[in-house]
Every structure is written in structure tokens, then in C-alpha cells.
């Protein structure tokens, strides 16, 4: 079953990534773009995990873990900037 599920999943996630890029570039507001970037992080994690399953390798999961962690911090920092301007106060 994996043989056809994985390509389908790849196609769907890739489509999501493309739409993320669209929103990222189009905006129009800053929260739109921040949200697009955050969703891009989420979809990238999905891509990496799919790739790991496809290649039967756990090597990519660290990258996915780090994206999960770092992406969150990036989003928090950007949101804090919108909220207060001064992010470390």
C-alpha cells in the first residue's frame, strides 16, 4: 500500500507547499505571511518524514525535529515583534 500512498502524499504536501509560497509572496498582510512561513515549516516536516519513510532511513528525522523546534521559535519572535516591537524586553 505504501507504494502508492507515498507518491500521493508527496503530491498533496507539495501542493500545500506551493500554496504556502503563494500566500507568502502575495500576503497581503504581515500576519498572512508569518502564518504562511509557519505552515511552510509544518509542511516541510511532513515532506521530510515522508522522505524518511520512503527511504526507510531515520537520518532525516533530526532535521524534521529541528525544524519543528526552530520554526516555532521563529514564529514566536515574529509575532512578538508585531505585538510589541521590542522582542527582548
Amino acid at each position, binding site marked *: 500500500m505504501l507504494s502508492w500512498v507515498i507518491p500521493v502524499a508527496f503530491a498533496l504536501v507539495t501542493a500545500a507547499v506551493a500554496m504556502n509560497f503563494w500566500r*507568502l509572496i502575495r500576503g497581503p498582510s504581515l500576519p498572512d505571511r*508569518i502564518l504562511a512561513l509557519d505552515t*511552510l515549516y509544518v509542511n516541510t516536516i511532513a515532506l521530510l518524514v515522508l522522505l524518511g519513510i520512503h527511504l526507510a532511513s531515520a*537520518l*532525516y528525522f*533530526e532535521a524534521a525535529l529541528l525544524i519543528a*523546534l*526552530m520554526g516555532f521559535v521563529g514564529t514566536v519572535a515574529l509575532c512578538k515583534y508585531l*505585538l510589541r516591537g521590542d522582542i527582548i524586553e
Partner: protein
Amino acid sequence: MLSLAWVVLIPYLGAALVAGVAHLGRLYSAWAAGLTTLASLALLLPEAPATFAGQTLVQRLPWLPQAGLDLAFRLDGLALLFALLILGIGLLIILYARYYLSERDSMGRFYAYLMLFMGAMLGIVLSENVIQLLVFWELTSLASFLLISYWQHRADARNGARMALAVTGAGGLCLLAGFVLLGEIVGSYELSAILAAGEAIRAHPWYAPTLILILLGVFTKSAQFPFHFWLPHAMAAPTPVSAYLHSATMVKAGVFLLARLFPALSGTWEWSHIVGGAGLATLLVGATIALFKHDLKGLLAYSTVSHLGLITTLFGIGTPLAAVAGVFHIINHATFKAGLFMAAGIIDHECGTRDMRRINGLWKYMPYTGTLAMVAAAAMAGVPLVNGFLSKEMFFAEAVSFATQMRFGWLLPLAVTVAGVFAVAYSVRFIHDVFFNGDPVDLPRTPHEPPRWMKVPVEVLVVLCLLVGIFPALTVQPILSVAAGAVLQAPLPAFDLAIWHSFSPALGMSVVALAGGLAVYAGRRPLFALAERSRGRLDAQRLYHALLNGLFALAGGLTRALDAGSLQRLVLLFVLSAIGLGVVGFLGADTPLRGERALLPVDGVSLLAALGLIAAAAAAVLLHRQRLTALIITGAVGLVVSLIFVKFSAPDLALTQLSVEVVTVILLLLALYFLPQTSPAESSRARRARDGLIALVAGGGTAALAWAVLTRPYESIAGFFLERSLPEGGGRNVVNVILVDFRGFDTLGEITVLALAGIGIYAMLERLALPGPTQDAQGRPWNWDAHPAIMASLTRLLLPLALLTAVFILLRGHNLPGGGFIAGLVTAVALIMQYLANGVAWTHARLPANFHPVIGAGLALALATGLASWAFDHPFLTSTFGHVHWPVVGSIELASAMAFDLGVYLVVVGATLLILVHLGLMHGASHSVPSEAERG
């Protein structure tokens, strides 16, 4: 064993000691300086008997034996003579300066500089390797700069010091070039080899440039015409400094080098004409100007210039006997000139001025000092029974015998006699103007004899002048013989040190000089009037200033031409020159752009990633005026780049890129807060078109280059590392093993730079408060809630998870993707998140606010890991590894490089936090942050 190295090193240790004890009290520094000098002397003296027996002692300390570089020290007669002069007169100067310096002057600083200078001088005279000699040569320039500018509040002191440094420093560069040529000719930089290779050097086609470059170094240092002008300006130094630098040391370094290289370079037409010519010109110019100086120290300064010219002339004449006379005059000049400077210092000290038109008739007030000064001045004039007479007589005799050998040779004795006349005249002036010639004119204070111990150094020197002058064979003969023997590197010629020889031409010249000098002084008034009228016409320092101003103007013009303060312009120049260089590389080459490697198939994921990258990059360019938007899109670019790293099997790079990405975003957000939120459009349409074209060409060129490289078979050194990583580095992750093991020394350097950058940023930001905007770009006020509760609680939960990830990445870094750098960034980001969500006050209540110890501990750990391999007789940073069996976990490979990696980790954590938190505090310093209690 290495006594000579210690002789040189002790003054340097002494400098630290002197500065260290300075706070205990004024006199401690003087005592420390004196004892240091005595210690150095005590180490030197046991070696002296062997030198007197004619041996040359060479001691070496292997430094970089692979490069043929050793620290080599040499003690022969010449070196011993100079070392004794430096240390002996140094001791007298230390005693004298203790009474000379006033309450306001810092004794610690003075004596510390003096010790630095003494060590450098000893290094020059005791070096066997000429490159090492040059290092000490430059150190004397630096130390003399500090000494001359000791009274930093005075503009003349600063200018004099700068001039001395510029002139002698430029000469030092020439000397370096000369030494390199000399080393290339001889095949060795060691004096033993150079001195033995005189024939080969003189016959070599490079002889003339080598000689001229070395002589430029010598002439600038020894204040030879036309570089003599810096010496009188150096008189702005405290008198003990002048007495030391201009009698026995600094300026004697030049003539020392003449003497040192005498067997290697002398005996040619070039040598006798350049050295003799410069010496003679200096002798005459110095002697003439000295007479017309009203400043006591100015007179002595030009007299020093003149006497240095005399010594240079003697070496220029080049006969063995002239060289002996040269060495003899070095000794004599050092003793009487040091004494005279000290006497001048006493007079200045007692009268409050050095102007000889005001200081008159001091005999009534200080007859004892007057007597001492008279004896020393008699030596300067060359009066019988004092040491100066003997060497001057030898000088006259050499001039006469040289004259008989050449056409127009009679000019030399004539010129020398004229210089002798002026020497007598200015010596008489020094005594008559100061001690007789009526009464003092309007002195700031009433002079009297100085303290007892201030006179002792002068007494010692004057007694030496007399002893040498009356009993030369008993006193100076042994040291003069070994020193001259070392200069010649050959058996000594027969010479007779006696007051009376016979009625010779030299005696006649002495008589003429004495009588003529008295006559010139008697008829001084019309001469002074003439000098007054022609003042400022002939001034060598004009040339210096013109040259220096020209240089500054050139540098300024060049800088302004290249850097108009516009970053765009600099980037344009940079990109254009890169394009130019790239195109030049392609011109004329007929290799095709595309290599012979077969292309790989394109897969859908890569294509999509590339398209996404291009789209995001293009969007970032188009939207770059909205700065926050551009930042968000750049974040996406970074994400895609790290995905590409994953695709091309570089997980370490991907992890690093991801961590750096978020740190960069935080850093830019911190800066963006203080900046305008949008960039105004400043460039015209035409200019944007031009820039776009240039960017296209540059980008296209880079792509073409990458295409050319990637389509060719490429043999890298990767195989070497892949093969050896596990057996030799004990790790399966080659990237990490390279970082912490194979190229660990690079990494150590890099983390040091990172630590320095962090501390540098901290130093610049400390106490800097900038006002931030009170509303956002749309004009809305900031939200009242600085730390929303949901965010704060969530991030607190995330902290342990993030730290666990960091530890995991750190530990497995040696074998699987990860390592200290990535783990450090992850930790830093996890902690920064607490600052973001909870605020500085909350975080600092739970976490130490001082990151410096973390950075320090990291560096110390990395360094200690490297040093530990020394304990096992392995080179620095050799790593070892082994297997450890842990219960439950199983077998684990542990490498010493992991301790090194932990050091890297700590430095990265500390430096990142230091930079980011202090950037954040820049605004916190200007407004009050709600405290934890207020927030509830």
C-alpha cells in the same frame, strides 16, 4: 646554559615587575628597575672572561627548527662592550632619574618603559640571527616612542616621538629588506655565517642594493644626514631618557650595526663613499648647527649628531685602525655625552629653563656641577687628558693617512679640522655661556647644587672620562681590544693608546681645532646674527613634513576616491572587479564551458524546490523595501536551502542552516526595531536598470562557473577524510571529526574569534540606550501585554524538550549528524525563547545574567583538551578515543575530541546569548520593563 637569553629576557620581566610594584610607592619602581638591571648584569658577567680570552659564545634555543629558525644569541667582544654600556649606563640613568622625576610624573610608567627599552637594546647587541636582531631593532623604536612621549600632555613630546618612530620605523623596513637580501646571498641569517662570507657578499650582484637598504636602516637609526632631524626633536623627552638614548643606546644601535657588519660589507668603493660621505656630512652639519643652538639640550643633540657622524666616517674610511678608533669613540662618546646630558638635566632642573641666553654665571651657584660639566665638555671638545682627545686624535690621524691615497684627499683632513673647530667652539660655549658670561637673566628659581645622589652618576662618568684619558692602556685597552677584534674578525692592527705620540699632522690638527674653536667662539656675535637671519632656510625636517603631508594627502585622496561613504558604490566596485577578474580568466582559454561529465536526471522534488527558491528569492528582491516582509521571505529561502542540503545528503549542513536561520531572524528583528520599517526608493530608474544588468551578469557568471565546475570530474580530498575518520578520529560523522579533530586547530581559532566578537559587541553595547518607537508601522500603539500568559506557559514547557534535543545532538555529534556548534545554537535558541516569552527580568531571576564565564569556560576547556595531549608526548590537539560500556545504554565510543566539542558548545551558547540579550537590552536600558511582581 641559556644565560644570554636570560640577560635579554630579565629586563622584560623587570618591566612587568616595575609596573606591578608601582602602586606600593614611588621608590619601589626605581629599586625594582635597579635590581633588575643588576640581575641582568650578574648573568652577563660570568660569561665575560671567556670573551676576553677571545671566544665567541653562541647559544641557541630551537624555535621552529623545521623552518631553520632558532632563537640564537651571540656574545663576542663587541656584544660584550655594548651590553656593558647598556647595563652600566642604564644603572646610572636609573639612579639619576629617581631624583630627576618630579612628584607629578609616574615613576612606574617611566621605569617600565626604560626596562622595555633596555631589553630591546640588549636583544640587538646579543642577537646571532639577523631577523631576530631586526625584531629587537623595531622594539627599540617602539620603546623609544613611549619614552620620548613620556610627557604625553606636551605636543612637542608627542610630535618628537612620532617623528622618531616614523623615521626609524621606515629605516627598519629598509633594514628588513636588506637583511632578507643578505640572507639570500649568504644562505643563512646567522651572523657567524654572514661575517665569514664577506668575499661572496661583496662580489654578489645584489651587493649594492643590499648595502643601500641596510645603510638606510643604519642612517635613520643613528641620525645620519639627511635623516638627522628627528634627533633634536626627540629632546622633548625627559633628560634621563635623552641621556640614555642619545649616548649609549638608541642612536648607537646604528653604528653598532655598522661595526657588526663591518667584515661582511666594508672595503668597497660603495661602502667608503656612502658611509664615509654620509658620516662626513653629518659631522659637519651637526657641529655647525650645534654652535648656534640656544637650547642646552639642542646643542647637545646636534653635538650627538656630529659625533655619530664622526664614528660613521671612521667606519667609512674602512681601514682596521679606523675601525678600532670608531669603537673607541663609541665608548668615549657614550661616557662623556651621558655625563653632559645629566649635567644639562641638573641645570634645567635647578634653573627651570634650558635657554643659554638666560642661564649665565652659574659658577657662583653650583661650582661642583660646573667642574663635572667642564671635564665632560673638555672630552667633547677633545682636550688632552680626557678620553675624547685620544679617539679624536686617532680620527685625525686616519683622516690624514686616508688623504694621502686619493685625489682631492686633502679635502677630508680639512673638513675634519673644520668640524673639530666647531666642536671646540660649541663645547666652550656650553661651559662659558652657562657658568660664566655675567649673571643669570630672569631665572624662574634660584639655582643651587642638586641632591647628593643626583650628582653621583655624573661623577662616575666624569671619573671614567679622566681615567681613560690619562691611563688608557690600563683601563680601556682590554675591552677595546676584544671589541675591535670582534668588529674586524681578524687580528688587530698595532695601535698605541697614549697621550703623547710625537709631533704628527694629527697633533697639528688638534692644536688648530683648539685654537680655531676659541677664535670662533670669541667672534660668535656676528656669526649668531648671521645664523639668526638664515634660520629656517635649511631645514631637513621640512622635507619630512612635506613627505608626510604628501603621504597623508595621497592616502586621503585614494580613500575618498574609492570610498565616498556609499555602500552601494563599494558593492558596485567589488562586483565589477569580480566580473572583470572572471572575464580575464576566461579570455584566451579555449576550454569549453561544459565539461564531459554526464548530466544527472532532473526529479520533480528538486525542480519544485529550485522553483520555490527562485520564487522566494525574487519575491525578497521585489518586496525588499518592506523590511519585515523581506525578512519573513528570507526565512523561507533559508528553509528551502536547508531542504536542498538534506536532498544532497548533507544533514550536518541542514541542521546548522536551520539553527543559524532562526538566530539570524531574531538578530535582525532586534535591529529592525530601531530602524525605519520601510526603505525609501533613492535610486533613479536608469541607475536601477544599470544595477540590474550588472547583477544579471554577475549572477550569470557565477552560474556559468558553477556549471563549468560541476560538469567536470572532480577528485576531492573527501576520500582521505572518509577513510581515516573512524580509524584515526574515532567517529563516523566525518564532518564533525574534521571540525574537532583533523582541523581542530582551525576550530579553536574560530571559537576564539567568536568569543572575541561576542565580548566586543558587549563592550560596544554596554550602557548604550536607544529610544525605540512607541507605535508600530501603521501607527497603532504597542500592545499593553508584554508577555502574554499563553505564550509564556507554552514556552516554559518547551524548554526542557529543547534542551534535551541539544544534549542529544551534542552527544551523538561525533558519529551522526550534530555536534557542539549545532547543539550550542539549539541551546541558545531555547534560552532566548524564555527571554522572548517571559522577559529579561523573569529569566535573569532564574538564569545567571553573566555569560562571560560560560565563554571563558568553553575556551579553557577546548584549550585544555588540546594541551592535554602534550602530557602524553603528542602534538597539540591530538585526540584519542576508546569504548566505554555503560549499563542499559550499551557500548559507547568516547573520544577526547568530545571534550573539545563541549568547549565549542559552551562558547557558542555564551557568545550567542551575550550578543542577542545585550542587543535586546539596548532598549530596555532606556525604559522601565514591568517587573515580575507587577505582572502578577
